[in-house]
């Protein structure tokens, strides 16, 4: 047996063995084997040609299977994406939750307080404003004034009735020109604290029935309008986490 014939038989054996061991057509070294065949061809005799043709036939078969695999994979991927979008569009909340639960195996863990968390808590408590007046001689038991309580942050310096009047006047003025005003325009203050205070005052006025807070789910927007006499009272939750319209 010549050197070329021997090598050709080895290559054919490699192709057949690779396909036998694994159905994955990408495991066959198609490019390398073709390169080697082209190098062997000038040295090959007429008697080697059937072997060469057999290898080429097997490689053509491998390439065809690679093409099929790619088309199948792309089809499955596109179908998966279509399924995903259809599910988002068509399933209701309960069905979506069930779909998730069927494929969900949540992590299990035990919560506990760590040393780091204890240190963080101590830092937080240490940095808080102290609820006591510093007295040089030591501790003293006595009544403190409103001003001192305001200085300690226990009482606000602002009078709630004044805030209520201010918000009421401002809203009535705004509603004299239009039927509804945006919630954030209604409560907007000079700083974040004043905005929160205005929002608190407005919630009190709405509870008294003087104004009404309406939520528009389409625009995800809150509005304020005049209260309706005899209207059905409803509770409205207005998230104040992101106050983006205040002056600060």
């Amino acid at each position, binding site marked *: 047996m010549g050197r070329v014939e021997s090598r050709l038989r080895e290559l054919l054996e490699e192709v057949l063995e690779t396909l036998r061991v694994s159905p994955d057509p990408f495991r066959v070294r198609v490019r390398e084997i073709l390169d080697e065949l082209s190098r062997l061809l000038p040295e090959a005799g007429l008697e080697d040609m059937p072997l060469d043709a057999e290898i080429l036939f097997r490689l053509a078969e491998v390439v065809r299977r690679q093409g099929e695999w790619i088309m*199948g*994979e792309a089809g*499955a*991927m596109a*179908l*998966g*994406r*279509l*399924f*995903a*979008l259809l*599910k*988002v569009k068509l399933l209701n*909340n*309960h069905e*979506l*939750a*069930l*779909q*998730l*639960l*069927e*494929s*969900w*195996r*949540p*992590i*299990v*863990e*035990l*919560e*506990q307080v*760590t040393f780091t968390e204890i240190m963080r808590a101590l830092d937080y408590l240490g940095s808080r404003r102290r609820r006591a007046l510093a007295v040089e001689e030591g501790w003293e038991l006595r009544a403190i004034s409103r001003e001192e309580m305001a200085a300690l942050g226990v009482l606000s310096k602002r009078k709630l009735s004044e805030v209520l009047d201010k918000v009421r006047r401002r809203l009535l003025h705004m509603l004299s020109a239009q039927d509804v005003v945006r919630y954030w325009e209604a409560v907007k203050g000079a700083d974040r604290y004043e905005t929160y205070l205005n929002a608190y005052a407005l919630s009190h006025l709405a509870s008294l029935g003087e104004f009404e807070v309406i*939520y528009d*789910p389409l625009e*995800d927007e809150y509005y304020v309008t005049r209260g309706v006499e005899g209207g059905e009272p409803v509770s409205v*939750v207005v*998230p104040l*986490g992101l106050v983006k319209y205040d002056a600060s």
Partner: protein
Amino acid sequence: MPARVPSAKLRKAARLLLYRSRSKPGVKGWELARALGRDYLEVVKALNNVLEVLGLEVVAVDGEGRRLDLEGDLRRALFLVVLREPPSIQEAKTAGWRIDDLAVLASSLLYLMARGGRAPRSDLMGVLRSRFRSPRLSYVVERLIRLGYLEEEGDQVVIGWRSRVEVDLDRLVGVGLTPKEWRQSQRGEPEASLSS
């Protein structure tokens, strides 16, 4: 069959794996090896036998959240305890999940899967707003990001590490069939097992 493991090592492994020691759950393989010794994988396998009774399982995942076989060098892998079977809807509620929040998570994952795993935050929020009218929506999405189910990369939202670990995304997307099962059924391969 796992090797016989001293019960003290099992208890130690259970404490390491179940108690949360940092913000992200799980223990690295090298941490287990340091605490349990060179045969830490045998200890984990033995612990798995004990946890099976409780419906729990120790799994190892790589950096991408892919499950790894409990073989070979897993010092860089992350070890976690997960439920062996999916929770019921009642169990999810007991654990503090609302149906609406689960639906938001499912929709987010499905939409991101359809977009190849990532999408601009504005696009995702647009899709979610068209489905969920709740004023809690932004809060829920922020919570999912905080818990690791979704991740932010600049203005993009991507599927979070926790979703990759906990959720069988192929199963979530497929209509009863995973893409692999679907492909097998298309080819008529006999080993195709059609799950419900």
